[in-house]
C-alpha cells in the first residue's frame, strides 16, 4: 500500500508538514478574505474543491496529516497560536475583514456547541439560535439595567441558557427523530416571538447601547496597541472570540475523549443497545442540550457586547439552520471539520456578493458541490485511537 510508508513520518518531516500546512491554510483564508472580483472567488473555490477532491480520492493524505500532527503536537499548537495571534496584523486596518472573522469565530463556537448534539448524539436540535439569543439578551439586560460587568455576565448568561437547555431537553425526551426536531423548532420560534413581544426585552426594537467591556482599564471600544502596532478596536473582540473558540475546542475535545462522548456516540448508533449497556439515555440527551446551550450562550454574550445592539432578528430560526448546515458540511463529530464549516459558511455568502442577485443561488450550488465531493462532510468523523496506536 502506498500509504504504509508515508503514514509514519519522521519528526522533522512531521514538523515541517505541520507548519507548512497551517501556513497554507492561513494564506488561503487571507486570500479569500481579500479578493473581491467574482472570478477570483470562483478561482479560489475551484482550488478548494480540487483540494477536497484529492483528499477524497487519496485517503492516505488525511492519515499522513493526522499522524504528523499527532507526532509533534506542541509544534502544531504553537504554529496555530502564532497564526491566530498574527492574523490581525496582516489584515491591518480593514475592519470589514476583522468583522467577518469575529462572526466566523462566534459561529465556530455555536457549531461546536451544536456538534455535541447533532454530531455526537444525533439529536437534531433547531434551537441553538434560541440559546444563542438567550445568552445575548440575559447579558445585555444585566449590563444595561444593572451595570453588571461583561466578565460577570458571561457565566450568568451561560447558566441561564443551560437552565433553558434543561427546560427544552426534558420534555423533548418524549419524542425522537423528526418529532424531536419539530419540538426544538417550536422552542426556537417561541423564544424569538417572546423576545419580540415582551416590553422589557425592547420588543422588535431590541436592546441598544450595550456598553463595551473593558479589561485592566483597557476599553474594548478603543483601538488595540501592541508593540507600537495599532489595530482597530475590532481586534479586541477578535482575540476574545478566538479565546472562546479555544475554550470550545478544549471542551469538545475533553468530552469527546471521555466516557461521556462515548455514551453520546453509543446512543447515536443504537439507543436500545445503549440502554442495555447501562447508559441512562434520557439523562445523556438532556446533558447534550445543556452543554450546547452553555457554549451557545457564551457566543451570544460576546456577540451582544461586540455589536452593542441586539434585536430578535439576530436569533431567528434561520440562524439555527445555518449552524446546522455548518456542522453537516464541515463534518459531524469532527472538531476541526466543524470549525472549517463555520468559517466557510460565514465567509462564502459575503464573498459571493459579486454575483448580486444570484448570490444565494450560487451559495447553494457551492454547498451542494462540496457535499458531492465529500458526502460525509469536509472532514468526516474518525475512529478514536488510544495510547499511541495508529
Amino acid at each position, binding site marked *: 500500500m502506498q500509504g504504509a510508508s508515508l503514514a509514519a513520518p519522521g519528526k522533522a518531516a512531521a514538523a515541517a508538514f505541520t507548519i507548512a500546512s497551517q501556513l497554507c491554510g492561513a494564506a488561503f483564508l487571507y486570500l479569500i478574505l481579500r479578493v473581491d472580483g467574482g472570478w477570483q472567488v470562483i478561482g479560489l473555490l475551484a482550488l478548494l474543491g480540487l483540494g477536497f477532491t484529492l483528499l477524497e480520492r487519496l485517503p492516505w493524505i488525511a492519515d499522513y496529516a493526522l499522524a504528523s500532527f499527532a507526532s509533534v503536537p506542541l509544534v502544531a499548537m504553537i504554529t496555530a497560536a502564532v497564526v491566530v495571534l498574527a492574523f490581525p496584523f496582516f489584515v491591518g486596518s480593514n475592519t470589514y475583514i476583522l468583522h467577518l472573522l469575529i462572526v466566523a469565530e462566534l459561529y465556530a463556537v455555536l457549531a461546536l456547541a451544536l456538534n455535541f448534539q447533532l454530531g455526537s448524539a444525533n439529536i437534531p436540535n433547531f434551537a441553538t439560535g434560541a440559546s444563542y439569543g438567550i445568552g445575548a439578551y440575559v447579558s445585555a439586560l444585566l449590563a444595561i439595567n444593572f451595570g453588571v460587568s461583561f466578565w460577570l455576565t458571561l457565566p450568568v448568561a451561560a447558566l441561564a441558557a443551560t437552565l433553558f437547555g434543561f427546560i427544552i431537553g426534558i420534555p423533548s425526551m418524549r419524542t425522537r427523530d423528526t418529532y424531536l426536531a419539530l419540538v426544538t423548532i417550536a422552542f426556537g420560534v417561541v423564544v424569538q416571538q417572546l423576545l419580540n413581544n415582551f416590553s422589557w426585552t425592547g420588543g422588535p426594537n431590541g436592546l441598544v447601547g450595550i456598553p463595551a467591556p473593558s479589561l485592566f482599564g483597557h476599553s474594548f471600544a478603543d483601538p488595540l496597541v501592541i508593540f507600537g502596532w495599532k489595530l482597530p478596536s475590532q481586534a479586541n473582540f477578535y482575540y476574545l472570540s478566538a479565546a472562546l473558540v479555544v475554550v470550545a475546542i478544549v471542551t469538545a475535545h475533553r*468530552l469527546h475523549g471521555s*466516557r461521556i462522548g*462515548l455514551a453520546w456516540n453509543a446512543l447515536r*448508533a*443504537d439507543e*436500545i443497545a445503549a*440502554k*442495555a449497556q447501562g447508559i*441512562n439515555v434520557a439523562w445523556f440527551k438532556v446533558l447534550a442540550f445543556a452543554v450546547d446551550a452553555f457554549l451557545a450562550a457564551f457566543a451570544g454574550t460576546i456577540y451582544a457586547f461586540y455589536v452593542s445592539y441586539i434585536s430578535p432578528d439576530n436569533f431567528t430560526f434561520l440562524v439555527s439552520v445555518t449552524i446546522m448546515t455548518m456542522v453537516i458540511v464541515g463534518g459531524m463529530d469532527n472538531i476541526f471539520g466543524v470549525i472549517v464549516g463555520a468559517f466557510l459558511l460565514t465567509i462564502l455568502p459575503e464573498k459571493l456578493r459579486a454575483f448580486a442577485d444570484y448570490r444565494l443561488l450560487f451559495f447553494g450550488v457551492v454547498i451542494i458541490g462540496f457535499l458531492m465531493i465529500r458526502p460525509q462532510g469536509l472532514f468526516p468523523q474518525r475512529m478514536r485511537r488510544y495510547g499511541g*496506536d495508529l
Partner: protein
Amino acid sequence: MSALLKVENVTMRFGGLVALNDVSLSIDKGAVLAVIGPNGAGKSTLFNVVTGVYRPTSGRVTFDGAEITGRPSYEVVDRGIARTFQSSRLFSDLSVLDNVIIGMHTRTKTGVLDALFRPGASRREMAACVVKAEALLKLGSGDLFEQRYRPAGALAQADRRRLEIARALASQPKLLLLDEPSVGMDDTETDALVADIVRLRAENPELSVVLIEHDMRVVEAFPHHVTCIDYGSKIAEGDFAAVRADPRVQEAYLGKAVAHA
C-alpha cells in the same frame, strides 16, 4: 442456596397478545440455564422483562435479593445483569474497542465536570478501560483483538456475536443473558462458542448464564437446567434429557402426533 435471579409468575400482555403467561423460573449463582422454545414463544420477551425494557403486566423479578421489576435498564445493568441481542446490536460506526469500552459504562464514573476540569483523571480512567477492553478481546475465540480498530459494522457475523459477548462481559456482570449467541455461526464457530462459555465459567465460578438457544448442540453442552417455553407458557423444565423426552416439548417443536394416528 438462594437463587440469584428469580422470575415469579410473570405475565406480559401487549394488548390482546399474551407474550408471557405466568412464567416462573430461577437460577442459582454459577449455574447455566438454557431456555428453549419455538420462534415467537416469548423467550426474548422474557429477557426484555428481566432487563427492564418492558415492565411486566403482573409478576415479580428479583435479582441478588432486590426486586427489579420494571426498574430502568441502566439500573439493572448497574446491579449486574448484562445481555446480548438476538439480532446483534453493535454500535456499528464505532471501533470494536470502543464498543467494549462503552460496555464498561456502569463501572466508570467520570461526569461532565470531571471530564472538563480533571482531564488527567478522565484520561487515566479511559486508559484503564482500554487495557481491560484489550484483555477481554484477547480472551475469546477469533481474532477480535487484531481487529480492534475496525468499525464494528465491518465484522463478520461470528465476530459480531463474539463482540456482543465481550461487550456484555465488560460490565462485570453477575448474570449474563445470551440471546441466541450461535445464530449465524458454522459448526466450528459454534464449538468455539461453547468452549468460550465453558472457559468463562471456569474463570468466574460465580457467573450465572441464561442462554436462549435453538442449536441443540449448545444446549446439550449445558444440560443441567433446561426450560422450554411455548406460546408464552412454560411447558417443561428439568435436565436436557428429561425435557427432550417430554411429549409436550416434542409437540411444540414437531407438531401434534395425532395427525399420524
